[in-house]
């Protein structure tokens, strides 16, 4: 298959950095952005002088409690006397950040981009859940007094029904990811738990229980992207961004079947086509599917076409997605294990694939040889899919 678009420059990731992920860090959002940006620049052996453009991602302003977060985060992200774009597509933001950084470089506009994702959810109290009340349609939805978990529970229930997946099947994702996170130095929710622990945790909106969900987190993550000529100069092991995909499905989320993430299949097809990937289930070696909830990882494995529809729970049981398995998913520990500072979490997933493809993940390194990888994120009100495909 031939790539379907014209790009002026090939794009590589040449550096990545993270802060700690925790529920409440001392640092301000700006300081978090700076810490992650500094780590990413250092790992690439570059300084801000070498950076042409900045892309910053952060989800709802209401979490940090500072309106116009793009401007607020600008200088902490290196956005000083340079072009800066703030990206926001809800939970999909984290993977949208490298996608947008990609087109800055691929277009020839910038040779180097510093891409930063930041979120500080602990500011809102007693729980940021209250802030979510303002994302609902004021006429159709808010009168019902909804909780954000409702829609995920509705989706999970539909997936369970159509795919005949049990709560036990789904809980295995949480068990796997929290276990994987034990080897991640930034992890907030790493644990050795059992399926039973998940099933005995607090029931929030059945079928969603406390351990089915990723935690509330603060944190930042950053990447340095560069054109081929710069990448070859600064590193011997660039990780190429081979494809990006973005799709928005119908905003009327209760007007479509929630059992299958169509938004993701379309975004993935766009990215795979660009990357020349025809059989993702055979060609992808390692994946970071977006896992804010445990069922979402299965949902997204299917949407990324890494498994047939409704087949992911069975493959999971067989250990297919373990770090030692045939197609390891969320080797980082994902959002369930490492934590979910929304925009930073998606960037963390792409950073993990960067380290995996360079064989730098240490204890987290997957067993099999790796060459091609895919990450996705999902958000807005359930309908946006963002995908990047990487390769060495």
């Amino acid at each position, binding site marked *: 298959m031939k790539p379907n678009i014209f790009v002026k420059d090939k794009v590589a990731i040449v550096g*990545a*950095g*993270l*802060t*700690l992920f*925790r529920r*409440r*860090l*001392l*640092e301000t959002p700006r300081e*978090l952005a700076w810490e992650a940006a500094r*780590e990413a620049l250092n*790992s690439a052996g570059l300084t801000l002088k070498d950076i042409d453009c900045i892309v910053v991602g952060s989800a709802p302003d209401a979490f940090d*409690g500072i309106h116009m977060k793009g401007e607020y985060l600008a200088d902490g992200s290196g956005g000083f006397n340079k072009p800066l774009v703030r990206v926001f597509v809800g939970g999909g933001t984290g993977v949208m950040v490298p996608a947008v950084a990609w087109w800055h470089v691929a277009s020839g506009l910038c040779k180097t981009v510093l891409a930063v994702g930041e979120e500080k959810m602990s500011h809102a109290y*007693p*729980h940021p*859940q*209250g802030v979510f*009340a303002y994302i609902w349609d*004021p*006429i*159709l*939805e808010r*009168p*019902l*007094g*909804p*909780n954000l*978990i*409702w829609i995920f*529970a*509705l*989706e999970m*229930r*539909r997936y*369970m*029904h159509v795919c005949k997946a049990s709560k036990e099947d789904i809980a295995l994702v949480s068990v796997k990811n929290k276990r994987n996170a034990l080897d991640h*130095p930034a992890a907030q929710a790493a644990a050795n738990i059992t399926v039973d622990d998940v099933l005995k945790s607090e029931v*929030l*909106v*059945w*079928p*969603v229980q406390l351990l089915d969900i990723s935690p509330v987190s*603060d944190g930042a993550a950053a990447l340095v992207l560069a054109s081929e000529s710069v990448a070859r100069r600064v590193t011997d092991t660039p990780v190429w961004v081979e494809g990006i995909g973005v799709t928005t499905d*119908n905003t*009327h989320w*209760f*007007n*479509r*079947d*929630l059992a*299958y993430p*169509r938004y993701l299949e379309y975004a993935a097809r766009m990215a795979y086509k660009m990357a020349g990937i025809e059989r993702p289930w055979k060609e992808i070696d390692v994946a970071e599917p977006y896992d804010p909830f445990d069922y979402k990882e299965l949902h997204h494995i299917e949407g990324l076409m890494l498994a047939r529809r409704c087949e992911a729970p069975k493959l999971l049981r067989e250990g297919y997605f373990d770090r030692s398995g045939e197609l390891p998913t969320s080797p980082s520990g994902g959002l369930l294990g490492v934590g979910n500072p929304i925009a930073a979490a998606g960037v963390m997933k792409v*950073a993990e694939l960067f*380290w995996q493809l*360079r064989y730098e*993940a*240490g*204890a*987290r390194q997957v067993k099999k040889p790796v060459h091609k990888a895919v990450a996705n994120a999902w958000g807005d009100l359930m309908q946006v899919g963002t995908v990047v495909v990487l390769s060495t």
Partner: protein
Amino acid sequence: MKPERTPGRYIREEDLRRLPGVIEYKPVARYSYSAGQALSEFLRGLKEGRILGKLCPSCRRVLVPPRVYCEFCFIHTTEWVEVPGTGVVETAVVSYIGTARERLEKPEIIGVIRLDAPGYREGSFDFAGLFHRLCGVTEDDVKSGRVIGMRVRPRWRPPEERRGSMLDIECFEPVQP
């Protein structure tokens, strides 16, 4: 192992309170939303005990909730069509928490209802539907899956209590055979 460093200092709730310069702030912002061209009419319909949709002249789908454009064809929807209000439960859940994550005394059952409306193939991915409370079904109906596919219809509030709001429908309840 990468990352080699993960900067950031974890602080507990108690530590936060001891720090200098902690600011508490509660935003005060009030809004009054207009329902717009399509939903104003839809809400007027609810007040009369009717569920109204809009017909796309091109693909012939009846869109519920109505919009002034068909997002599939991106053209103006012209005609108002009343749908019977009956449908099937697409998915349903039991909520034990409220909007701010507080525990509810009495759990609520919420569902997505695929409405009977012209213009969609049987079992199509896209459908006309609403999101509402379900009544007359038990938690066990939700957990066992009995509720999915169940035929339901709106239970209307008495006319004098209707305000032109989604809450003019009290809930969707099973259609007794």
